[in-house]
């Protein structure tokens, strides 16, 4: 029993209270509010590092568990715990939250107090999602994250923010309802909502597992988003404020992939195995479709948004390889996507703040005007493209390696791998196209000449991203080591349960 995780999850609430008390109205305390929010998120980051330090990589199961009965009559518990599947997500969340708050510093100029309160609440929800080990608690946090994001998009978003926020809300909500049904079914038949207990007693609902799998899968697939469910993404991403996009890409989408790993695989191993080829096909369509659709986009932010579909396709493919390499690659690639795409959204945000346009045709030759910014952007673009030595490559390579040896993908897994690997080519196509259009070519728009290069704050944010982009790229072993025991356990668990060729 440890209350460390509870402290981690709810620490940002203290920040919210502090902001409420600090506010003196009429924008007098705007700076104070920003600093409070930043300090809160930094302290949360530090707490998450404490979690990391207390984390024992040799243990496969849940650690630092905080478990008390909550509604005993229904078997609902307040149950937090962390293991190899979630530790990276926790660190990603706290990191991205700091970055997102820092990235909003000058971009948000109205209703500052509410904005930062929502940012901190968002962090609470996201951490809760990754730490909750009780399905009911998980569901509450899952839905809770919608609310701050809804307002972040709806109040501080772009031109069509209301449409985008409602679509985001309804879309994800609709998917979640089926999951709620599945949760209630399992919880009521087993008398417990605790995930480890349900996994231990999954035989009880083995007959219904295919349906239950779909119930969960649709909710998660919408969040990810897996190919045909992606329609909310470009709207939400393009309309959200920069920090919203960073959080959306960095963490929210990972909630979907995390859900698959945390719930679908261990709870319904046979169904996961049976549906793996279908999901892998959707993932691969997503990889290729997302990449192709990114290419002709005129709006940089939309291009990045669509590229997320492609990247997340890799993650899904890795997870449904159902082997150690694939799943570890998938989880790591989730982190990588959070870093690279988060950084891409940030860089779009930085130039948008100055030029109030995101159309590629308005740019060109920026390298001449703002060289430092361009070099930083280049590294980010290369990371997103999967250049070896940077983070994206490690993830993609491990995923594809896993998919090649995946039993779940039948007798010719190399077909899946080959199609997925073509995404590597397409990534170069659209990302270089974007890079060329924005940063290369002649500097022919006089407005772009007046751009200023990165200031200290932006540079620090970029460096924060780059540290991890390079670190994961050249020394990923530590990251894999964090999740190795848990993933190995999960894979053993699946392969010992699954009947091949059923």
């Amino acid at each position: 029993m440890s209350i460390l995780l509870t402290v981690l999850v709810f620490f940002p609430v203290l920040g919210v209270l502090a902001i409420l008390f600090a506010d003196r109205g009429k924008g007098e305390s705007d700076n104070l509010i920003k600093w409070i929010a930043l300090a809160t998120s930094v302290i949360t980051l530090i707490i998450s590092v404490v979690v990391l330090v207390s984390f024992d990589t040799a243990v496969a199961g849940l650690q630092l568990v905080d478990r008390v009965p909550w509604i005993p009559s229904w078997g609902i518990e307040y149950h937090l715990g962390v293991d190899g599947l979630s530790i990276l997500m926790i660190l990603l969340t706290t990191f991205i939250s700091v970055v997102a708050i820092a990235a909003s510093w000058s971009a948000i100029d109205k209703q500052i107090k509410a904005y930062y309160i929502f940012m901190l609440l968002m962090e609470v929800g996201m951490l809760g999602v990754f730490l909750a080990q009780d399905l009911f608690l998980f569901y509450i946090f899952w839905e809770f994250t919608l609310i701050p994001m809804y307002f972040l998009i709806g109040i501080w978003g772009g031109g069509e923010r209301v449409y985008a926020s409602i679509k985001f809300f309804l879309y994800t909500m609709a998917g979640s309802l089926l999951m709620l049904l599945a949760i209630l079914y399992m919880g009521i038949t087993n008398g417990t909502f605790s995930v480890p207990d349900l996994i231990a007693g999954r035989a009880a609902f083995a007959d219904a597992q295919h349906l239950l799998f779909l119930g969960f899968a649709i909710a998660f697939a919408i969040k990810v988003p897996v190919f045909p469910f992606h329609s909310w993404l470009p709207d939400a991403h393009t309309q959200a404020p920069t920090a919203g996009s960073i959080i959306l890409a960095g963490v929210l989408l990972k909630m979907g992939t995390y859900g698959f790993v945390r719930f679908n695989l261990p709870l319904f191993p046979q169904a996961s195995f049976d549906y793996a080829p279908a999901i892998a096909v959707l993932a691969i369509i997503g990889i290729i479709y997302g990449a192709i659709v990114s290419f002709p986009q005129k709006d940089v932010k939309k291009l990045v948004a669509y590229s997320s579909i492609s990247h997340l396709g890799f993650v899904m493919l890795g997870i449904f390889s159902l082997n150690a390499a694939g799943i570890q690659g998938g989880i790591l690639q989730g982190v990588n996507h959070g870093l690279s795409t988060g950084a891409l959204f940030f860089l779009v945000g930085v130039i948008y703040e100055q030029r109030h346009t995101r159309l590629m045709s308005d740019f060109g030759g920026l390298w001449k005007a703002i060289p430092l910014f361009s070099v930083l952007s280049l590294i980010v673009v290369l990371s997103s493209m999967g250049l070896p030595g940077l983070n994206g490559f490690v993830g993609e390579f491990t995923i594809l390696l896993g998919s090649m040896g995946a039993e779940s993908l039948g007798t010719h897994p190399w077909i899946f791998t080959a199609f997925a690997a073509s995404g590597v080519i397409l990534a170069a196509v659209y990302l270089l196209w974007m890079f060329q259009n924005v940063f290369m070519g002649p500097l022919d728009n006089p407005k772009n000449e007046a751009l200023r290069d990165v200031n200290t704050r932006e540079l620090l944010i970029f460096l924060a991203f780059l540290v991890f982009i390079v670190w994961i790229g050249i020394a990923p072993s530590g990251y894999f080591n964090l999740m190795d025991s848990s993933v190995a356990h999960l894979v053993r668990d699946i392969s010992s349960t699954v009947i091949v060729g059923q």
Partner: protein
Amino acid sequence: MNAYSLAPLLLLFPAIGVLFNGLIGRRFVEADAKVGERWSGWFASLMAIGSFVIAVLLFLSLQANEFQAMIVPIIDWISIPSANFYIPWAIRVDTLSVTMMLVVTGVGSLIHIYAIGYMHGDPNFSRFFTYFSLFIFFMLILVSGSTYLVLFVGWEGVGLCSFLLISFWFDRTNAAGKAMNADAGRKAFIVNRVGDFGMILAMFLMFWAFRSLEFGAVFNTAVEMFEQGHVVEFGLFSAPIGTVLTAITALFLLGATGKSAQIPLYVWLPDAMAGPTPVSALIHAATMVTSGIYLIVRSNVLFELARESGPVIFGVISTPDLVAYVGAFTGLLAGLIAFTQFDIKKVLAYSTVSQLGFMIAAAGMGAYVAAMFHLVTHAFFKALLFLGSGSVIHGMEHGHHHLHEHTHDDHHGDGHHEEAPFDPQDMRTMGGLRHKMPTTFWVYLVGALALSGIPPLAGFWSKDEILAHGNEHALVVYVILAIAAVCTAFYMGRQLHMTFFGEPRHAAAEHAQESPRLMTTPLIVLAGLAIVGGLLNLPYLTQAMAEANHNHPAGIFLGLEGWLEHSIKSFELSEEGILHLPHTPIVLSPVVAGISTLLAVLALGGAFYVYRNKPETAADPDPLQKLKPLWWFRILPFETFYMKFIVPPFNWLANWLAFAVDWNFWHDFVHNNLIRDMFVSFATFLADVFDKFGVDGTVNGIGSVTKGLAGGIRRTQTGFARTYALGVFLGAVALLAYFLWVLY
């Protein structure tokens, strides 16, 4: 002598160079252009030279330690215990990798020094050297890695540097306003990625088949499995080892065609000439483009096993044969295209493609040593030619500047040329430069003759080895390559004549000046190497000599053969000896050598004859233009195919998917029109029906009741809180009454 542990320095030096120029070099240059450039350029050059010194030390260490291959670990890169996947980052020091290191750092250092002169005055001087050091860094990773994955890191890394350096002048536009340099860089990167696609697939297959990506382990396992006739099994997949090996090697071939610019992926290399000339020399002639050959030579075990597996590809051909044919056809095709080019660097670019084809063909035929030999000599003379052409361009630009400065008081320029955009790389504007730029002319002549295969220059020996090998083992390949060699001699003759002989065809050519010493010195060094490079692997001239020295293939005779043997023969130790590695012919074949020399001389002479006084002015057509079928090669090959049949459909598909399918159909139609609007209209429909029902009901008196009821109900909504409270109590009392009723 044991300097193995110094190997990491090999990478460290260029890394320091990158950091120096990347972080502070710019400030130096901005503070004081002259001193700054010297610091920036020389620092990078010294780092390259430092790496060269380390490479030499490694070379000596190998000599002193009986050519023992050594693995020097640096860090543990990727390790996933549960997936049994371990990739250490280690440097493999063996004769093959050290050969490549020497070429890369040796030629690289010379080109660095040359570039200090060439890039003089460029505002982004330090950025250029940052990229250059970065390139050396990645290239050394490529050749030094002990696993395929580390090799791949370098492989992609040099692709990146190539992209950055090609688009170095990213703001240059062509007449149509397109950012051509940036376009060319992007094209190079993307085409290379197509090759990389093959590489990574090959690595996945290899990992699951042999459970390792480390060179030694892979080769040993492969030989072992092959001998035992294992079936490769992983997951639910199973295939005979021969098929798997063929697939792996074929995918490697795809990788090599990308990086080494072979059919069908050679199209990026000619465009890459948009970059600064030192880049063309270093990356697109001497080093990076040869990494495909390095890959094949490095994987010689796998290729030879694939050869033994028989014709697996469609049942007609084995991978090594396919490699040989790809190389040979590329050699010929590129040679033909080179006839039709006017840009001095593009001729050289196609020539590079052609020569790379020779090397690939040699590797495919199993003549790995010959391939490496040609790789080394080619690095010398092609770097020389490119740097020479750079010197020419530099001179022409100088002349052009000179012209501009004196337009008012000088009448050399005729108005026509002044207005047309001047292209300093167009050979039609040159001519007669041998008097203006004598040093450049002489070194260029050496390079051109070496390339054409005139004895006793380096190119003759290496090319002849390949041809002799072809003559012995693959006659078709030999014939094709022999024709390609003729083409080589012819287009080099054409280039020589158009550039250096005849009369100047443009005012700029008249004012061209010799390049500074900083540029010509490396040229002279390279020319020296191009002359004596053949000594590296001189064959025995007679059978008697060979027999006398058969067991000691060292010294000046077949030095490279004896040296590389320690890396390339490794798998021959297989027990049954079923695998036979064809070696380079040990004795010079007088027939083959005689024929090629004769043809080369004839072709050179022919070129000089055809171009003896043509074109007379820059606007004149080329004499070869009369040969329509030949001239078609200017437009016909793969480039056109891609531009017509791959790129537009892709653009169309992307636009269609993005705007028609995803946005208009999926986003707008399905979500907005179908789902949302249908929901809305369903709701409206319900409301309408209800309404209609109400209207109809009025007739029957129901309407009025409804209305009255509604009005009545509405009246209850007084807005007075107390009224509502009353309602609540009414309800409470009603409930109470209900309980009472239940009780009694």
